[in-house]
């Protein structure tokens, strides 16, 4: 899932300094699961803001609402009427949701309340570890299900590098070497020959905005007028 962390409170206060009535918009999907931007966290932020601004003799009116998702138009539409009552919106969704909210209401200042931190697994309640960098060139089939782009400090598609050190990475003795882990797992599964395959370096096509259309979902092209 997409994980995020709350922005420092002072930063949020600074963003909202000149606004008198704001709506905190939570998101009920990924950020709710990773305990940063769901209904509960939206209420907490609204309460914090209300108290802090009152103390600063600059009172603010804060309401909160949590949409099912902020990355789908149908849920954003729920705010079409409501948002007109507010000077600004503060979104607790991931970067995707924040932008989609801002795109939906281009005349309204929209601010982020979280820093999006990546795609992660849930190791324990409130504890998340990144596993995927969404590089669009998945090699997990040949790396024993361990992602070298995410888990290797250099993001190497072919490894290990010379910095591998008794199972750990040269950057940090507590950081396991991804390619050592890959070697161990492939050896255990009797398919070590896969590590010898050479893969082209990551294309980093994600340096520009990508569009993904699933098979069967492309809109039919309009017929040209005859």
């Amino acid at each position, binding site marked *: 899932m997409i994980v995020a962390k709350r922005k420092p409170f*002072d930063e949020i206060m600074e963003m909202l300094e000149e606004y008198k009535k704001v709506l905190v918009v939570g998101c009920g999907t990924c950020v709710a699961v990773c305990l940063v931007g769901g209904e509960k966290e939206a209420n907490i932020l609204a*309460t*914090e803001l209300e*108290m802090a601004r009152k103390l600063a003799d600059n*009172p603010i009116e804060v309401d909160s609402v949590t949409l099912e998702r902020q990355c789908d138009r149908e849920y954003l539409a729920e705010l079409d009427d409501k948002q007109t009552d507010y000077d600004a919106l503060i979104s607790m969704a991931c970067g995707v949701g924040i932008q989609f909210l801002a795109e939906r209401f281009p005349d309204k200042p929209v601010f982020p309340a979280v820093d999006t931190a990546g795609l992660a697994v849930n190791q324990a309640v409130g504890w998340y570890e990144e596993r995927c960098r969404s590089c669009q060139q998945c090699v997990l089939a040949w790396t024993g299900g361990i992602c070298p782009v995410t888990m290797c400090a250099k993001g190497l598609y072919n490894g290990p590098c010379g910095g591998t050190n008794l199972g750990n990475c040269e950057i940090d003795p507590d950081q396991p070497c991804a390619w050592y882990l890959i070697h161990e797992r492939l050896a255990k599964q009797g398919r070590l020959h896969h590590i010898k395959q050479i893969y082209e370096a990551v294309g980093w096509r994600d340096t520009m905005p990508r569009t993904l259309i699933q098979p069967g979902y492309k809109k039919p092209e309009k017929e040209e007028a005859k």
Partner: protein
Amino acid sequence: MRLDYPANIKIILVPCSGKVDVMHLLRAIQKGADGVYVVGCLEGTCHYNEGNYRARERVNHVRQLLEEIGIEGDRVRMYNLSSGEGPTFAQYATEMTEHIRDLGPNPLKNKGKS
């Protein structure tokens, strides 16, 4: 035992200290309480294994949130005792009351209507 404890303490019963949420503590301060404390079972004795540990984490979280807002985090505290320790309960109530008296009233109180 007919023990005395300060009359300003308002007790809110919960089935387990693990039920206490960040929002409950924050809302109490927002509504003007001068202090809030959670009294949980002794650590290691939770019937639900980790209810009181979770409560402690939440109390610590609220303390941080309050400091960020500009309110003394020490207005919120966590205490632990067993259900057989009536005198300790009274002692903690007195201790908390004296501590809050030292801190003074909730700074939000003088800031007009909430």
